[in-house]
């Protein structure tokens, strides 16, 4: 029998299969032909892993040549003749380094991730659309007049990004595009605004109403108000209150009340993503620090400023370091967010500034009366029916085919969502018209701290930020800046309001004079670390609620600053990585006292004494090698779990909401509160000491089972609570995992750190990995790059944002692209 026909058929089959997989892919595999192509495919990343020593390119729209010089840390220093050109060049270089990140983040804000990664992103895309974010971005763009400053800078930035896209071959596209089988999208100004919306969602989508509602459903209104109070019991406000020390306000938590059936009915329909995890501390991931020291308290007699913004750890970093110089007009160094035309945090020759998130409540819900419960077209306000705005939201896949169509309705307040049988609308400052681009532009042109704060307050809308600034004259100042709603009298901002009356609407925004702020305080320093901005005894109106704040880092920072009246730059850097913890200082004594009390009783839990001895030996510092930190954190988590068992619905295992650790500390003062009683035990009524000691012993047992005996080393903080720096797509091969770091439990390790001394001679210190190793470069004189930038000692592998090498500085020269008529 001749085999040749079979061989030919086999060869055809194999070739056909290979061509099919090569061009179309199979399952999760991208089309293998373009992917494995050694010239243009994923391997292109290795060919372009090293930057050329020099390059030149033509950018459309440039008015004159621009030079970009890279120092040995890979930071671009952009020298341009005009600010528009500087922004164009910024767009170009950021695109060259962070193209995929820019597109991913913009799409996350626009709700168009499915067009990049497929239908797996449908759930992620539906949230921003339901919240009105893409519509808000479109409205912001429409509100910018053509030729206005903000629009001009957005256009210039887009020009730069697209110029890079035009220059780059497919081989130079980021590997993520190859893995997804996609190509980069051209950048538009709307993409930048979608990015801002995304940041707004990250930092200002705080829905205390749901916490209160969820708690009310299970324990009644009075208890819910106490568990989720407006003001934090621990006062160490951003605006100094003159006390010179922190204050603990008494907090009485009423016994759990009856179940609220109305709230319970709504509870069943709360999205599962709102069911918080056990650890209250971890829920506050996006937390940052900044502080400033006046000349009177600095050894150099100059103002000092430090900032370390904390956001999720990712590769690449959320931040991109850059320096923009336009002789005579602009000289600003700092960090930008890829996709944003301007420096967000940084310093000039005159001022230095940094930001932390305020956590203000800038979002309200309204229960609307609609004409049809299934397909509403109108809503009622003041006995008048108003038309709902309808917007069709199309979700497309990678090929452009429509996956799904949603209809999102809008009242005059904002997007409308169906919650069980109720229709609830939302008003949110993140969706209001604003011009962040101009805000950062004017900020980088300010010459004094006062000027800086004023221009920023004029332009900046949301998300509200605690802006700290120091100037060359020695002034230090801080202002919690953003637009804060003026709510109707009697509204605490944490209830769902009656939408059928315009009396529920916001009546305006706070005047700037009432923002939490301070300038040159007598104490000689200022600090913000996401604590409550203003003492309740001084607050003019409702600003936010306890669960959105965190006092602990502010307490530690202020403790360090109060103890040092001759602060140096080195002190400031050391403070940024200080592993001390006021939280541990205040909670550990309760744990140890509880252990002592229970050990004195009969039938103490096994291993309680051992656990107590470990806590006793711990210096309450979160250093890499100690065993006490993980025991403390685990015990505190278990204390919370046992204490707030009333907030777990029957038959469920997850709490509906978690009160803050500040509330837990307040409860600690009441050893006999009914909240300590474990509802699962019917033959005993537990008190504080019983619950705390039980949690401590259980923590020891848990850790022993997980890590073995403490002496084996598995309990070391650096091992048990290591940092995970994940790639944006979660690709394990491009992530940095299990990094031993010192610092607290939040794991919101800084993405960058800066310490600046004003005036000129400023130093920028940037940690390139979480272990806190340092490097410095000296900021050069305007227009002159140092001949040799000080090389940075940095650890390898942790981040991809700054590449360190001993190679000479590299450069790109950009020239205007001539038109065909030239």
């Amino acid at each position, binding site marked *: 029998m001749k085999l040749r026909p079979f061989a030919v058929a086999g060869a*055809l089959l*194999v070739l056909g299969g290979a061509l099919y997989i*090569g061009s179309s892919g199979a399952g999760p595999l991208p089309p*293998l*032909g373009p992917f494995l192509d050694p*010239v243009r495919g994923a391997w292109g990343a290795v060919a372009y892993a090293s930057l050329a020593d020099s390059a030149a390119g033509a950018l459309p729209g440039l008015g004159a040549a621009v030079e970009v010089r890279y120092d040995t840390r890979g930071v671009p220093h952009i020298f341009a003749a005009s600010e528009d050109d500087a922004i164009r060049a910024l767009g170009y270089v950021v695109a060259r380094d962070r193209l995929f990140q820019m597109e991913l983040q913009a799409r996350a804000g626009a709700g168009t991730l499915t067009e990049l990664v497929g239908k797996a992103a449908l759930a992620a895309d539906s949230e921003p659309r339901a919240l009105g974010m893409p519509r808000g971005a479109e409205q912001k763009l429409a509100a910018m007049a053509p030729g206005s400053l903000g629009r001009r800078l957005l256009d210039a930035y887009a020009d730069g990004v697209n110029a890079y896209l035009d220059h780059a071959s497919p081989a130079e596209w980021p590997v993520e595009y190859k893995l997804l089988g996609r190509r980069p999208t051209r950048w538009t100004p709307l993409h930048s605004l979608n990015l801002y919306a995304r940041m707004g969602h990250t930092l200002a989508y705080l829905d205390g109403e749901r916490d209160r509602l969820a708690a009310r459903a299970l324990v009644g209104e009075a208890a819910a108000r106490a568990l989720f109070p407006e003001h934090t019991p621990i006062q160490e406000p951003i605006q100094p209150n003159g006390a010179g020390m922190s204050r603990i306000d008494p907090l009485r938590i009423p016994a759990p009340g009856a179940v609220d059936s109305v709230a319970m009915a709504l509870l069943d329909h709360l999205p599962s993503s709102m069911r918080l995890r056990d650890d209250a501390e971890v829920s506050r991931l996006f937390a940052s620090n900044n502080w400033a020291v006046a000349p009177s308290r600095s050894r150099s007699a100059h103002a000092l400023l430090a900032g370390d913004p904390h956001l999720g750890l990712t590769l690449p970093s959320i931040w991109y370091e850059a320096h923009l110089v336009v002789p005579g007009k602009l000289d600003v160094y700092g960090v930008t967010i890829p996709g944003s035309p301007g420096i967000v945090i940084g310093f000039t020759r005159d001022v230095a500034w940094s930001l932390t998130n305020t956590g203000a409540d800038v979002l309200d819900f309204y229960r609307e009366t609609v004409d049809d419960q299934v397909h509403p077209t109108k809503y009622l306000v003041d006995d008048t029916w108003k038309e709902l705005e309808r917007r069709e939201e199309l979700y497309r896949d990678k090929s452009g085919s429509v996956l799904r169509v949603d209809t999102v309705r809008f009242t005059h307040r904002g997007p409308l969502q169906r919650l069980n049988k109720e229709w609830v609308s939302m008003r949110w400052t993140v969706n209001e018209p604003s011009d962040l681009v101009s805000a950062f532009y004017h900020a980088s042109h300010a010459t004094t701290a006062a000027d800086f704060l004023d221009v920023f307050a004029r332009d900046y809308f949301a998300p509200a930020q605690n802006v700290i600034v120091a100037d060359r004259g020695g002034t230090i100042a801080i202002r919690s800046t953003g637009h804060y709603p003026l709510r109707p009298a009697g509204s605490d901002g944490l209830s769902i309001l009656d939408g059928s009356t315009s009396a529920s609407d916001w009546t305006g925004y706070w005047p700037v004079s009432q923002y939490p702020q301070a300038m040159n305080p007598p104490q000689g320093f200022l600090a913000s670390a996401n604590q409550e901005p203003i003492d309740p005894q001084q607050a003019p109106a409702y600003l936010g609620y306890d669960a959105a704040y965190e006092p602990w880092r502010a307490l530690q920072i202020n403790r360090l600053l109060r103890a040092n009246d001759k602060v140096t730059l080195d002190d400031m850097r050391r403070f940024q990585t200080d592993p001390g913890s006021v939280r541990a200082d205040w909670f550990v004594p309760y744990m140890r006292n509880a252990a002592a009390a229970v050990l004195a009783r009969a039938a103490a839990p096994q291993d309680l004494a051992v656990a107590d001895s470990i806590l006793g030996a711990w210096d309450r510092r979160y250093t890499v090698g100690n065993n006490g930190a993980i025991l403390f954190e685990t015990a505190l988590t278990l204390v919370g779990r046992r204490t707030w068992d009333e907030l777990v619905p029957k038959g469920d295992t997850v709490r509906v909401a978690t009160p803050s650790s500040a509330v837990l500390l307040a409860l600690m003062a009441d050893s006999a509160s009914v909240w300590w009683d474990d509802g699962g035990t019917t033959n005993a009524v537990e008190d504080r000491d019983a619950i705390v000691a039980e949690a401590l012993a259980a923590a020891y047992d848990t850790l022993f089972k997980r890590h073995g005996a403490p002496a084996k080393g598995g309990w070391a903080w650096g091992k048990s609570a290591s940092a995970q720096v994940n*790639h944006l797509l979660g690709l394990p*091969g491009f992530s940095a995992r299990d990094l031993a770091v010192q610092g607290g439990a939040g794991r919101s390790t800084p993405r960058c750190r800066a310490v600046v001394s004003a005036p000129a001679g400023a130093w920028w210190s940037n940690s390139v990995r979480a272990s806190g190793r340092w490097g410095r470069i000296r900021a050069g004189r305007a227009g002159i790059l140092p001949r040799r930038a000080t090389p940075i000692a940095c650890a390898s592998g942790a981040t991809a944002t700054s590449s360190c090498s001993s190679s000479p500085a590299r450069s790109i020269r950009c020239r205007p692209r001539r038109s065909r008529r030239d």
Partner: protein
Amino acid sequence: MAILRLLMLAIGIALGTVLGAWWVVPVVAAAYGFVMHRTSRPGFTAAGSGALAWGGYLALASVGGAPVGSFAASLATSMQLPGWAPLVATLAFPALLAGTSAYLGARVGGRYLTPA
């Protein structure tokens, strides 16, 4: 001669990939098979050339300092594959394309070019 044919074809495939794209591989290989249908086992020669072309390109890049090895490891980990998988796939894919194309080209050449 066989070695020479393999090398020349590899260069042709590599140039075709650089100037065109991945799909040039089966085109070049099929043409080779069509013309060289009288040679011994043109399919195997083409398969070897395909692997050599793409593998050689990566080898040259590696010699030039490109982090081929570490990137392959990262890529493999990200795709939940063994560490050798990306490199093996990069050799096997063009080998498969070239080998089958050359074989089929040789069958066509043998049918139409062989004197009656």
